[in-house]
């Protein structure tokens, strides 16, 4: 037995046994354990394999910076790769497995990479795998891909729920260690709205792992009393299991709360993870400091860990990481670990102190080797001894764990995410938080304080200062006394010379000192180049342990201060965050809100198939019994509209109410055609351009009264058009008295089209709608039989006699039902957007298939709608540019297949007969196509070079993508009723 659970002690609940498995074997831990502490308690030091060389690895830390102990937790669709065993909260039924090894963790074939390591140094892949050329993609890359990567993701739909929430506070405190607790307490007592967030499942931070006493009680108990008081304050929110991962503009912090990651079967009523966007007026970073590993030969062997980690496992979890522990240190932390171990009856075989002398109290009975260093470690799957060197003499010291301490690095990650770089301190031999203003301060060891007492004080002081800033009454916190704390100061030691094995800087990515040296020799000297070339700091821990060492070592190689080397860029996320948490509820069918038409039910009752159209679902066609394909339904609908009458839901068209004396003028300026003289009671088709002269959208606008218009837009551009109007009115012409409000949702709007539409409509509407009383383009408020107020427009997209009737949305279904009933004898049918599309194609009406953001009005045959006599309208000036008026532009034409049964598909290109397909020969493309049941063959609209001059020409419709070539005749885009006789029935 090497590592084991002590008989007593620690903050685990020994009364609550938890069963879990690791690589199929069952173990037991206690409530309050992490997966790592429980594995150690069961003497499972070997937990993982490294990325590149597949070296055996255990834990290095007891916290979130862990680079080595990555496991896969959970199974089935809940499997999660790359979980850090050091932060996974143990629960009953937890299933853990090692990863990146084959066939087993102990016997991993990938270890061969370690033997090949002379060939696999930093950046080796840039220099090789190039011969012979095709082998890279056929052989080398597939092999590399298979070997690379860590854990396996399930790639199944996630069975759990996620959600997001906002939180607002005066003060956000990040980290609930000594500084964070005192900051929260000071602010909480002062009455501020406080959020205290900590990544751990138990608040208290380092206090939980230290043996000092605070306020006359064990540090962990002190933390407990503070938390109790905070929990009772209504203005304080405690957020354990919450990692603040990012600091964004305007003091918005991103955080993720692990709501149910510590249970085997999450409750379906709760999210498993909750994303928080915390808006804080002020914030304190009390994230503590990371202990630096020492960089010596064989420093990656399982059992080699930081001194603080060894101490935490001992004090917090009641686990001895070894039965004979050696310590290698350059500061007080190693001594404290030795003392704590000795106090708990664990044998400490030696303290190897890199310094010639120190004032640290020597634990009784422990041998101290001063001026010593470790140059190698022994053991295969776990350390079983080390080689110490002193004054040129080597000595083997037996041990089954090695606690190392290379000093401390304040955790300043969050404060450096917005561009500020940490600042090197010669005094602290560490990078400290940059000065980023008065809203966000580092406190405690994150600010470079090293003793608990100083951290307590600093936390309270910084909170008080920030609160004074916000106008809260000054509050002087009483700082508890600390007894038995140690002096964690240290002497810098970046690299331990004389290494007999690789000395790792980045444990997970297997970057060792030799790699850093190679990068320097090859010119990758900037620390960013060093990082990118060697991959140091690019593993899942993002270099939390290794980056400062890398900077120090590179500085040493170059003979400069670490200040000159600097750090690589800190970026979100502080620790990795699941896609699930960041996505929240927005996934699957909820990927976007759904908009349903007021006629949705009516359509459903009539057999509609629905199709997504932006956020809307629109009725596409209405199947009837016996119809085997959508085309059959569509053909029937089209023919019926042309012959009889049909009803179509057009409620999704954008509708904008426009009010004011300036409305006419505004419309005249945003439409390319004239609107000043539109009479009351009339609708007009209008074309809007962008300022660059390209068509933006089309629609109709009706004048309902002197200063009241209603505009309709296409479904797709409804939001853009409203924004365009608002932009024009607010920024170009604020002097115009005009107001807009969307009424899209207010109205159920239906198009009744076909030669019998008047007959049917007159059964619904009280008003006289004879051609004289209600001619083409009439637009008025009407009253339905039964008394309902409605709006009626005589406009047509189908080319038939047609009306659009708008009724208040709640009545839409009833009115549509009534129309169907009223039209039954006339053979009415419901028709959908597919039939609508065919109807408009037969009439040569354009949609956004033609108005695709590159076409001018003239391109699509609407040149007449450019009222160039108007002094100004949006798009007028730039529409006159040479390129927009050139004779060889693509112009709208119709196409009919020469052989009637041939299909033309949208997206095909056009070639002159006999021309070879090439861009130089490209004559244009098919923008829309359909089968025309009215004509009995396929038709298409196309954009063709100088197309209007080419009616009658035979042209090749080239669709190489789908392997078809069809000869077609260029014709007018209006296939049906070119003289619009049917409109005016």
């Amino acid at each position, binding site marked *: 037995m090497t590592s084991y659970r002590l008989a007593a002690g620690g903050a685990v609940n020994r009364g609550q046994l938890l069963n879990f498995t690791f690589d199929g074997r069952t173990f037991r831990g206690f409530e309050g354990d992490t997966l790592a502490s429980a594995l150690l308690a069961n003497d499972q030091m070997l937990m993982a394999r490294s990325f590149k060389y597949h070296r055996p690895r255990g834990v290095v830390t007891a916290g979130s910076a862990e680079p080595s102990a990555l496991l896969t937790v959970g199974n089935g669709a809940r499997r999660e790769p790359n979980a850090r065993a050091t932060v996974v909260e143990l629960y009953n039924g937890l299933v853990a497995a090692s990863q990146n090894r084959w066939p087993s963790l102990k016997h991993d074939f990938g270890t061969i990479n370690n033997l090949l390591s002379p060939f696999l140094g930093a950046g080796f892949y840039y220099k090789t795998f190039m011969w012979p050329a095709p082998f890279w993609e056929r052989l080398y890359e597939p092999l590399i891909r298979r070997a690379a990567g860590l854990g396996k993701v399930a790639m199944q739909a996630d069975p759990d729920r996620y959600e997001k929430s906002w939180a607002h506070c005066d003060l956000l405190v990040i980290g609930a260690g000594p500084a964070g607790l005192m900051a929260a307490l000071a602010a909480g007592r002062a009455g501020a709205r406080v959020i205290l967030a900590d990544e751990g499942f138990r608040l208290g931070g380092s206090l939980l792992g230290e043996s000092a006493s605070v306020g006359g009680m064990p540090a962990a108990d002190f933390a407990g009393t503070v938390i109790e008081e905070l929990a009772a304050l209504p203005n304080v929110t405690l957020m354990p299991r919450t990692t603040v991962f990012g600091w964004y*503009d*305007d003091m918005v912090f991103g955080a993720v709360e692990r709501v149910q990651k510590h249970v085997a079967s999450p409750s379906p009523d709760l999210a498993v993870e909750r994303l928080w966007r915390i*808006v804080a007026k002020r914030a304190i970073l009390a994230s503590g400091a990371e202990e630096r590993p020492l960089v010596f030969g064989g420093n990656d062997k399982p059992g080699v860990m930081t001194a603080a980690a060894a101490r935490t496992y001992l004090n917090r979890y009641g686990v001895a990481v070894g039965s004979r522990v050696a310590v290698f240190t350059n500061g007080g932390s190693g001594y404290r670990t030795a003392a704590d171990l000795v106090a708990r009856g664990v044998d400490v075989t030696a303290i190897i102190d890199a310094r010639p002398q120190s004032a640290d109290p020597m634990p009784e009975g422990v041998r101290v080797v001063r001026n010593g260093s470790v140059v190698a470690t022994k053991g295969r799957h776990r350390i079983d001894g080390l080689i110490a060197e002193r004054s040129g003499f080597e000595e083997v010291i037996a041990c089954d764990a090695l606690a190392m301490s290379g000093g401390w690095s304040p955790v300043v990650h969050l404060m450096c995410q917005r561009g500020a770089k940490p600042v090197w301190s010669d005094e602290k031999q560490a990078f400290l938080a940059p000065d980023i203003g008065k809203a966000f301060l580092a406190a405690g060891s994150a600010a470079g304080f090293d003793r608990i007492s100083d951290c307590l004080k600093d936390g309270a002081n910084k909170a008080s200062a920030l609160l004074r800033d916000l106008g809260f009454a000054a509050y002087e916190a009483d700082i508890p006394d600390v007894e038995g704390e140690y002096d964690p100061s240290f002497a810098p030691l970046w690299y331990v010379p004389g290494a007999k094995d690789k000395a790792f800087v980045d444990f997970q990515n297997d970057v060792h000192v030799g790699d850093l040296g190679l990068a320097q020799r090859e010119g990758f000297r900037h620390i960013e180049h060093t990082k990118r070339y060697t991959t140091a700091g690019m593993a899942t821990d993002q270099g939390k342990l290794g980056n400062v060492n890398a900077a120090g070592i590179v500085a040493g190689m170059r003979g400069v201060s670490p200040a000159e080397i600097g750090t690589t860029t800190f970026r979100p996320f502080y620790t990795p965050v699941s896609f699930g948490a960041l996505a929240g509820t927005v996934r699957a069918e909820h990927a976007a809100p759904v908009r349903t038409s007021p006629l949705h039910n009516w359509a459903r009752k009539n057999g509609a198939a629905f199709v997504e159209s932006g956020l809307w679902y629109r009725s596409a066609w209405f199947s009837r019994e016996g119809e085997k394909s959508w085309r059959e339904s569509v053909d029937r609908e089209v023919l019926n509209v042309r012959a009889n009458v049909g009803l179509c839901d057009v409620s999704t068209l954008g509708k904008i109410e426009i009010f004011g004396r300036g409305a006419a003028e505004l419309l005249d300026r945003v439409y390319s055609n004239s609107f000043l003289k539109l009479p009351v009671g009339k609708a007009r088709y209008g074309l809007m351009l962008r300022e660059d002269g390209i068509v933006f959208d089309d629609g109709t606008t009706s004048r309902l009264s002197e200063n009241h218009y209603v505009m309709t837009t296409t479904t797709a551009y409804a939001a853009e058009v409203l*924004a365009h109007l608002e932009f024009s009115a*607010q*920024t*170009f012409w*604020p002097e115009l008295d005009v107001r807009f409000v969307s009424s899209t949702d207010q109205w159920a709007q239906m198009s009744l089209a076909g030669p019998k539409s008047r007959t049917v409509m007159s059964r619904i509407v009280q008003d006289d709608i004879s051609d004289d009383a209600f001619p083409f383009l009439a637009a008025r408020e009407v009253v339905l039989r039964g008394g309902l107020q409605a709006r009626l427009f005589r406009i047509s997209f189908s080319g038939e006699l047609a009306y659009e009737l708008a009724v208040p949305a709640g009545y839409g279904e009833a009115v549509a039902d009534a129309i169907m009933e009223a039209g039954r004898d006339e053979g009415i049918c419901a028709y959908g957007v597919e039939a609508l599309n065919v109807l408009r194609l037969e009439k040569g009406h354009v949609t956004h298939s033609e108005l695709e953001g590159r076409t001018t009005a003239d391109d699509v045959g609407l040149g007449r709608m450019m009222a160039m006599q108007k002094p100004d309208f949006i798009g007028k000036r730039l529409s006159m540019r040479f390129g927009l008026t050139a004779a060889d532009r693509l112009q709208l034409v119709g196409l009919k297949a020469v052989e009637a049964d041939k299909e033309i598909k949208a997206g095909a290109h056009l070639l002159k007969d006999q021309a070879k397909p090439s861009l130089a020969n490209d004559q244009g493309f098919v923008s829309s196509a359909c089968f025309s049941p009215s004509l009995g063959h396929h038709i298409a609209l196309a954009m063709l070079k100088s197309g209007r001059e080419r009616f009658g020409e035979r042209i090749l419709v080239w669709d190489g993508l789908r392997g078809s070539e069809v000869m077609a005749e260029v014709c007018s885009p209006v296939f049906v009723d070119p003289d619009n006789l049917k409109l005016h029935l």
Partner: protein
Amino acid sequence: MASLITCPHCGTRPKEEFSIRGAAAPKRPSATAKDEDWHRYVYVRDNPKGRYQEYWHHVAGCRRFLVVDRDNLTHEVFGVTDASDFERARTAG
């Protein structure tokens, strides 16, 4: 900026509520202005690094266009004004 904008009409709101239209500095030329002025208005951007005025449309709020005066390097916001007020002020000024 970028995370939160303080709308002069609605208060502090998240970026989600806005749609960003672009540079506010170019002013739409008069109908009789030269072609070069129109070209410049539509296509040329000063694009300074630093202080920048930009149209943000509060689409999910008051639906006003706002001119956000900010630093595009530090993302510090100096002020937010209603676009009509901005336009009137520069027309008068």
